[in-house]
């Protein structure tokens, strides 16, 4: 077995026991990248030299440290919307040009301080807008399980890198499912924490009221460890919450007796791939075997979530992306005057989907339409949030599929943006309500593509969803199955 296949906690154990050095592990990861990334295309930028330096330093620390942090010496990948000081950050957009950030995102600073080795920056849909990475301005990323399929998005590069063992673990961001859906597509674990649990400072904003950073890992324990390292209040992020960070890894005790699983009836309806429904139902039965109790619940406003999400998210994005104007950083086109310079720089710099969303969001906020679209959507968002409040009166976690289908084929949905948006149906309500949710593997479809199980928790109750996910994972082997990366 290649060292690159190790999970974070396995690698960490070996590093502590000095059975392995961080440099060896890092080299193994780069070797794996050399072998497979010309097929997967997970990375936009590699930072080999700096990474090996970090690995060396980690090895020095490992020699001295009594109780080293779990991340010390662990090679991880970062989605390319995390600002990394001195390391090119593109957000998969041409408009950022060769942007070299002058500072590190708070989460980057945290994993660096914990001794993690930053391997490189992974591909994504431009400005994290998409569900397939097909909106990257540079190239598409392929699903390691089937190179003709999308890896999911927008954190598809991170998901593919984890699934293909091109890193030990990765960080992604999730605005409407961008961690969970690619995790489901690639057969890995992805956790979107409660809004406010993890700092957003230094993450290139898409929709500020929903963006959240989270771990993408090979198993649930890894997700718990990585979340511990990045969670907590950040004085630089007014929306981050002053709430103590539990030791999530200590919550993984396998005990879910009496825990109430809410099953929303609105999530098991037409449009879902049959095998997805079957796999999720069988996962629910497995959890029942471990003592969980099933509660049918209702989230009546689910059908409005896509409309609400695509109004609120695009409105915020239209404003967040105004700073990409070619004045202080990024690409500037030559216009005959100021306004033309703005318009051409942004026309040339942004891809079709980003422009579509900027247009949609600008429209939703513009005079005469604000009340009908933006304000209306924010009112319905309240109703969606109240659905969850009511549901959590009756259950402890909610269990659903992560996505209605397994990974679709590259190019299959690019012609119809609305169809693409509708595939986010199971994930976006969670962002609208600010809840934590995890996706983990729960089976494969007839074509061997992974299926994701989503477990949604109460605000700040990441510990419970991790415990449920871990209990399920212990009873199953899905997460241990590895893709065989074959040429297309």
């Amino acid at each position, binding site marked *: 077995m290649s060292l690159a296949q190790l999970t974070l906690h396995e690698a960490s154990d070996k590093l502590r026991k000095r059975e392995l050095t961080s440099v060896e592990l890092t080299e193994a990861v780069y070797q794996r990248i050399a072998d497979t990334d010309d097929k997967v295309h997970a990375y936009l930028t590699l930072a080999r030299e700096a990474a090996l330096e970090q690995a060396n330093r980690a090895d020095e620390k490992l020699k001295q440290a009594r109780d080293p942090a779990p991340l010390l010496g662990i090679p991880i990948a970062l989605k390319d919307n995390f600002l990394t000081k001195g390391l090119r950050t593109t957000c998969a957009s041409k408009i950022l040009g060769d*942007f*070299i950030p*002058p500072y590190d995102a708070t989460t980057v600073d945290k994993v660096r301080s914990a001794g993690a080795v930053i391997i490189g920056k992974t591909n994504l849909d431009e400005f994290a807008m998409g569900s397939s990475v097909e909106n990257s301005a540079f190239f598409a990323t392929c699903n390691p399980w089937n190179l003709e399929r999308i890896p999911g998005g927008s954190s598809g590069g991170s998901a593919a890198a984890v699934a293909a063992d091109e890193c030990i673990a990765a960080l992604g961001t999730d605005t409407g499912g961008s961690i969970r859906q690619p995790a489901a597509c690639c057969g890995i674990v992805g956790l979107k924490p*409660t*809004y*406010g649990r993890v700092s957003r400072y230094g993450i290139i904003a898409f929709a500020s*009221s929903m963006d959240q950073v989270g771990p993408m890992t090979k198993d649930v324990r890894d997700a718990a460890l990585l979340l511990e390292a990045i969670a907590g209040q950040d*004085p630089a992020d*007014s929306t*981050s*919450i*002053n709430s103590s960070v539990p030791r999530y890894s200590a919550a993984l005790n396998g005990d879910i007796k009496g825990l109430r699983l809410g099953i929303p009836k609105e999530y098991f309806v037409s449009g879902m791939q049959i095998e997805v429904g079957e796999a999720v139902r069988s996962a629910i039965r497995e959890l029942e075997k471990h003592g969980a109790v099933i509660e049918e619940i209702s989230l009546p406003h689910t*059908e*409005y979530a*896509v*409309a*609400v999400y*695509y*109004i609120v998210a695009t409105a915020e994005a*239209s404003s967040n992306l105004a700073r990409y104007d*070619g*004045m*202080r*950083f*990024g690409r*500037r086109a030559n*216009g005959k*005057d*100021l*306004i*033309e310079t*703005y*318009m*051409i720089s*942004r*026309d040339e710099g*942004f891809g079709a989907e980003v*422009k579509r969303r*900027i*247009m*949609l969001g*600008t*429209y939703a906020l*513009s005079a005469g339409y604000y009340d*009908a*679209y933006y*304000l209306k*959507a*924010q*009112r*319905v*968002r*309240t*109703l969606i*949030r109240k659905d969850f409040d009511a549901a959590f009166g009756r259950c402890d976690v909610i269990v659903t599929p992560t996505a209605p289908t397994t990974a679709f084929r590259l190019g299959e949905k690019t012609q119809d943006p*609305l169809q693409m*948006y509708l595939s986010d149906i199971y994930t976006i309500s969670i962002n*609208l309500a*600010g809840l934590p949710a995890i996706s983990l593997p729960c089976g494969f479809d007839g074509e061997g593509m992974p299926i994701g199980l989503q477990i949604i928790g109460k*605000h700040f109750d990441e510990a419970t969803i991790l415990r449920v996910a871990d209990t399920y994972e212990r009873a199953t082997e899905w997460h241990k199955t590895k893709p065989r990366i074959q040429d297309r």
Partner: protein
Amino acid sequence: MKLTREGIDRVAVLARLRLTPEEQASLTEDLDHILGYMEKLNQLDTADVEPFNHAVNIENTLRDDRVTNQPNADALLANAPARDATFFKVPKIIE
């Protein structure tokens, strides 16, 4: 609400996006389609519903009035498409 070409043009200027005629046509169609879907929100009576405010109710986070940044104009100007001494240089602004 039917989206017109003129409507699209107005929004494109607000958003500072130059659109080719093809983009204009396809965006008009896409947005019209998407906005048509959004109409489903009108099925709901929300007159008595407060707009969503924030995911989690928390206290103000405010900072103390202290200067914590050291001057470092060069670090910020390093990515500038054009500069003049420590100014950002931009196309001529005509008032």
